[in-house]
């Protein structure tokens, strides 16, 4: 029997009781942030490099006639080079945007409009980010045909499905590099190869992948790629789109018209400090990625082992083999995700539970994997980051185990399962 649950009635009434945790927090500072797929803190080295561009170097990089403009432009061009170098591109192939959502929109809508004469068919996958899915849905209203590929149990698309979906009207394949919920890495190089063989453009939303795992647009035959700064220790509100200039030269119709900035593909005065920050974030990632990948994978595996070694009936969502080093997504059977989050409220993580979403639907990504609704409700995403420590990982694991045990003592489903009742055979009286 757990010592955590009892029939104890709290005294004070409205006074908020202290959390019933017995895990020591001596070696950590609370709260702990472990939701690095949602956003990351700005690396102090990034911030330091950005700051002068708010003050002394405040110029508009489009001002051609004075040193203020030239200084700002130098900052922008250095960033362009750093981003290009990280992903194997050339600086002229980098277009700055407000973030990955805009990049996805520009890539997909830009290709759709520019290549309308060639065809009207787009292929994507059901586990894409909403920035891609909703953009595709809008294009369907304008007469485009979209194929939404299913994923396999491990979260990866089947390349044969992709081959079968391609036809003479296909102009674009858009498949993400790394999934934001389950961290699963799609076979980007294989997809790129297939697209180039068929003469179809390939866009990848690499928001979660760039700066985390090696990405090379040449080796992977990527034509268009979305990049975000704030997922890689840069600032929010800035991103980039890689647009191939050779073999083939990709043309995009702009979705924001104006002064013709970014070679006409994205008008608007550049967010110079943000762009400088994105550039610095890329430079740091380039230098530190090999060690950082190893360190994060070590912490992630430690977290996984310390949770899974002490709890039964916990399930990993998505492939462990093809996965970001810093991601783990686990379903805790018989425990509802939001109540688990509430129990570990000194730790910032996310859940695929319906209760945490605005739509009251559980995660569509987990559903696409064939994870039942019940386990989707029970899922937690852990996103380990550059600034997490081993002590934090241990604390998080201990708190999760403690809280899952407590909530299972409270769970009628756990009790029924332990009595040997097959929950699938129960006739549930839904509301």
């Amino acid at each position, binding site marked *: 029997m757990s010592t955590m*649950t*009892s*029939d*104890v*009635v*709290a005294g004070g*009434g*409205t*006074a*908020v*009781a*202290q*959390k*019933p945790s017995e895990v020591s927090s001596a070696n950590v500072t609370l709260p702990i942030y472990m939701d690095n797929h949602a956003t990351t803190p700005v690396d102090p080295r990034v911030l330091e490099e950005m700051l002068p561009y708010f003050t002394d170097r405040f110029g508009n990089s489009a001002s051609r006639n004075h040193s203020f403009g030239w200084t700002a432009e130098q900052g922008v061009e250095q960033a362009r080079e750093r981003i290009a170098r990280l992903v194997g591109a050339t600086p002229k192939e980098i277009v700055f945007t407000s973030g990955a959502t805009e990049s996805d929109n520009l890539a997909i809508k830009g290709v759709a409009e520019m290549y309308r004469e060639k065809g009207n068919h787009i292929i994507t996958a059901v586990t894409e980010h909403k920035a891609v899915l909703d953009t595709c849905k809008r294009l369907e209203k304008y007469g485009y045909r979209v194929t939404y590929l299913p994923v396999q149990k491990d979260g990866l698309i089947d390349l044969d499905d992709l081959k079968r979906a391609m036809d003479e009207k296909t102009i674009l394949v858009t498949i993400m590099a790394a999934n934001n919920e389950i961290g699963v890495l799609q076979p980007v190089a294989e997809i790129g190869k297939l697209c180039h063989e068929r003469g179809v453009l390939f866009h990848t939303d690499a928001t979660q992948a760039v700066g985390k795992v090696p990405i090379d647009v040449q080796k992977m035959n990527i034509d268009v790629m979305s990049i975000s700064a704030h997922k890689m220790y840069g600032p929010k509100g800035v991103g980039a789109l890689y647009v191939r200039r050779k073999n083939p030269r990709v043309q995009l119709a702009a979705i924001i018209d104006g002064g013709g900035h970014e070679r006409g593909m994205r008008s608007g005065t550049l967010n110079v400090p943000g762009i400088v920050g994105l550039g610095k974030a890329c430079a740091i990632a380039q230098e530190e990625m090999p060690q950082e990948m190893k360190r994060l994978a070590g912490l992630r595996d430690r977290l996984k082992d310390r949770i899974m070694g002490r709890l039964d009936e916990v399930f990993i969502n998505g492939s462990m083999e093809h996965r970001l080093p810093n991601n783990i997504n686990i379903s805790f059977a*018989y*425990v*509802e995700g*939001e*109540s688990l989050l*509430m*129990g570990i409220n000194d730790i910032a993580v996310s859940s695929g*539970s*319906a*209760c945490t979403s605005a739509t*009251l639907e*559980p995660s569509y990504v987990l559903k696409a994997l064939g994870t*039942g*609704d*019940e386990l989707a*409700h029970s899922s937690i995403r852990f996103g380990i980051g550059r600034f997490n420590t081993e002590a934090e990982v241990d604390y998080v694991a201990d708190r999760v185990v403690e809280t899952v045990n407590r909530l299972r*003592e*409270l*769970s*009628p*489903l*756990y*009790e029924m399962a332990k009595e040997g009742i097959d*929950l699938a055979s129960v006739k*549930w*009286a*839904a*509301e």
Partner: protein
Amino acid sequence: MAYSDKVIDHYNNPRNVGSLDKSSPEVGTGLVGAPECGDVMKLQIKVNRETQVIEEAKFKTFGCGSAIASSSLATEWVKGKTVDEALSIKNTDIVRELSLPPVKIHCSVLAEDAIRAAIRDWKTKQEQTASKPVETKA
């Protein structure tokens, strides 16, 4: 989402967690909700046949903090009431007591359903035992 202090209190210190012997003729069991909806409540009552007073109540809930709090509160409220009094508990009373936001109203509905289901189960048992000898009360 911010929870009310009362929801947090019930979540941290749930009242009357546990199970009663569901085969006992004095015990009524209500099991409502569905796992795929993310909410399942089991609420049990033990009723004194003479006085019709609910002498004990226990619950277990799979669900969010508001669902746990709603069912915990329901067990507190039914205890000491007669079955007829317990049937007068409305989900809106629970919403008010716990300051549940609109998206969590279904948790209170489920708690009311659980009370009703437990009482229905108990009443069914009484009818069955009433048809046997000795007991005469309808």
